[in-house]
């Protein structure tokens, strides 16, 4: 694709707001993107600390550090924080920063709404974690203790931590929906003249499908937790068989959202991968159209497979078979994506800067997530593996190796564009190798534990599981500590470092690289024309 004009026009007269006021009031997509990324990084460490406490407890059999009730609270809030406050905001941060730059738009289509979407996150994070603090003062009995899935009837009977989590989910949901609407409108209405949908960067395509999935499924989660709230406090019987309701109804509603959610977390990453792989293979992306169609196919399939999360709860055999095969069908478009990623590297002149290392690490480890997912999708096998550590390992290959490492790929790739400085390549590589090593040290043993029958969500376990749990805990602590390198590297890159060129990577393609690094506060005020 070639560009006729690359000059942004004159700057709009905008009173520059210094200090805190700038961040509170900003309508600028770059500022808002930065806030999303910083929030995500902070919450990544908050959620990480929680789970390190859990792993410490699991280092040995027996109860050493905490009461089981507190253990249950930690795992549930860990998951909610990681999913809603670390991964999703990181993806939205990417979208805010990059989509306008990539499609030649002056800003997001609805800038004030954009600011609101971000500022809903801190209140929600406070609501999620506040019950821990209140419990210290003798108010209530701590946070949500049901795990992140809120299953009834436990969640109907639970303490007020459930109410905090319900309200937090409502606010997080509003935030995500506002973000999604904004992204859809931006992609449909703000593209540079000449940028047809089939010239749209794949990152924007991935996010477009994500946004549609959010719009289709988050309101259903909102409805589900609302019913939970009325069951808890207003006497309804949605999830109570004595009133003609059904606890399984909650599982249907939750996973109608929950399964698409895993694609919501990953589609933005799948969108950014081809950019990184093409840049460092010095070749154009292989199979642009195939990837677009795969995104669409995955998006459609993902809303019709939800019941694979509760095969063991009991359902008619035809339903089991349907959900098994539809789930397995998702691996077809997913395999197309894998093929395209690999074919992009095939015969390329590859070089292995940190983003490329993370991208390749992502492909290999996320592949394991997909393969173990196929095992779980098999109804007969799942009868054995459901609610075991095998599932925990599976979804950490998906969400940490797929999600978080995908986000790290994007951060290393775009950080020089955002800050105007090169990050430290040595530290980046160290971070990568430590992460890959300790991630596998943490989670490979969990596959074995699950296969041997260790259930998930328990603070104590049988003696036979001791060794693998000890190894896993050691891995987790190395993994946690390695992330300090990441934070440090970001810090020094923001503060200074080698100057980055506009086209940070010499073979990178796309509008975003036509701008300086960092781009001016207002970019593409006059849209470029794509020929």
């Amino acid at each position, binding site marked *: 694709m070639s560009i006729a004009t*690359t000059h942004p026009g004159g700057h709009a007269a905008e009173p520059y707001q210094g200090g805190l006021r700038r961040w509170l009031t900003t309508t600028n997509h770059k500022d808002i993107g930065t806030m999303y990324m910083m929030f995500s990084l902070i919450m990544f460490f908050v959620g990480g600390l929680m789970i390190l406490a859990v792993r410490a407890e699991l280092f040995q059999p027996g109860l050493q550090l905490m009461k089981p009730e507190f253990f249950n609270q930690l795992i549930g809030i860990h998951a909610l924080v990681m999913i809603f406050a670390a991964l999703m905001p990181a993806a939205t941060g990417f979208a805010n920063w990059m989509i306008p730059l990539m499609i030649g738009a002056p800003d997001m289509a609805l800038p004030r709404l954009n600011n609101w979407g971000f500022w809903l996150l801190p209140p929600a994070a406070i609501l999620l974690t506040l019950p821990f603090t209140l419990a210290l003062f003798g108010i209530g009995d701590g946070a949500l203790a049901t795990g992140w899935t809120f299953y009834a009837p436990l969640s109907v009977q639970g303490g007020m931590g459930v109410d905090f989590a319900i309200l937090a989910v409502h606010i997080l949901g509003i935030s995500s929906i506002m973000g999604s609407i904004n992204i859809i409108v931006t992609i449909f209405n703000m593209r540079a003249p000449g940028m047809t949908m089939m010239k749209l960067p794949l990152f924007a395509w991935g996010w477009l499908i994500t946004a549609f999935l959010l719009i289709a499924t988050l309101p259903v989660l909102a409805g589900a937790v609302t019913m939970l709230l009325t069951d808890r406090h207003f006497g309804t019987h949605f999830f109570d068989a004595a009133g003609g309701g059904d606890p399984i109804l909650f599982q249907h509603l939750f996973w109608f959202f929950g399964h698409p959610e895993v694609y919501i977390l990953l589609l933005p990453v799948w969108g950014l991968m081809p950019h990184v792989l093409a840049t460092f293979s010095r070749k154009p992306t292989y199979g642009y159209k195939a990837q677009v169609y795969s995104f669409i196919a995955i998006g459609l399939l993902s809303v019709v497979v939800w019941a694979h999360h509760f095969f063991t709860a009991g359902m008619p055999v035809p339903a089991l078979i349907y959900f098994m095969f539809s789930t397995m069908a998702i691996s077809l478009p997913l395999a197309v994506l894998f093929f395209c990623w690999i074919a992009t*590297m095939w015969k*390329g*002149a590859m*070089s292995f800067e940190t983003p490329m290392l993370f991208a390749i690490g992502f492909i290999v480890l996320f592949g394991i997530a997909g393969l173990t997912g196929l095992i779980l999708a098999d109804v007969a096998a799942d009868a054995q593996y459901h609610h075991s550590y095998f599932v925990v390992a599976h979804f950490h290959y998906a969400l940490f190796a797929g999600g978080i490492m995908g986000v790290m790929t994007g951060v290393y790739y775009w950080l020089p564009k955002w800050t105007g400085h090169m990050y430290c390549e040595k530290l980046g590589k160290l971070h990568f190798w430590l992460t890959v090593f300790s991630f596998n040290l943490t989670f490979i043993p969990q596959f074995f534990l699950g296969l041997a029958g260790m259930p998930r969500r328990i603070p104590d376990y049988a003696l036979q599981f001791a060794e693998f749990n000890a190894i896993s805990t050691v891995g987790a602590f190395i993994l946690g500590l390695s992330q300090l390198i990441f934070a440090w590297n970001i810090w020094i890159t923001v503060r200074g470092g080698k100057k980055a060129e*506009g*086209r940070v990577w010499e073979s990178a393609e796309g509008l975003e690289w036509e701008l300086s690094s960092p781009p001016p506060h207002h970019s593409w005020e006059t849209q470029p024309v794509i020929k």
Partner: protein
Amino acid sequence: MNAEPTPSAFSDDDLRRRRAAARRLGWLLAAFVLGLYLIGLLIKR
């Protein structure tokens, strides 16, 4: 605006070598995966 591309960090020779290496590694991995597959076929449980 400083939109000029960064001068290439790699010489043409270097890029050629990298291309060849990528192709070799690709075949190697393909052979490895095929091998795993065949072993899987042969194992009787």
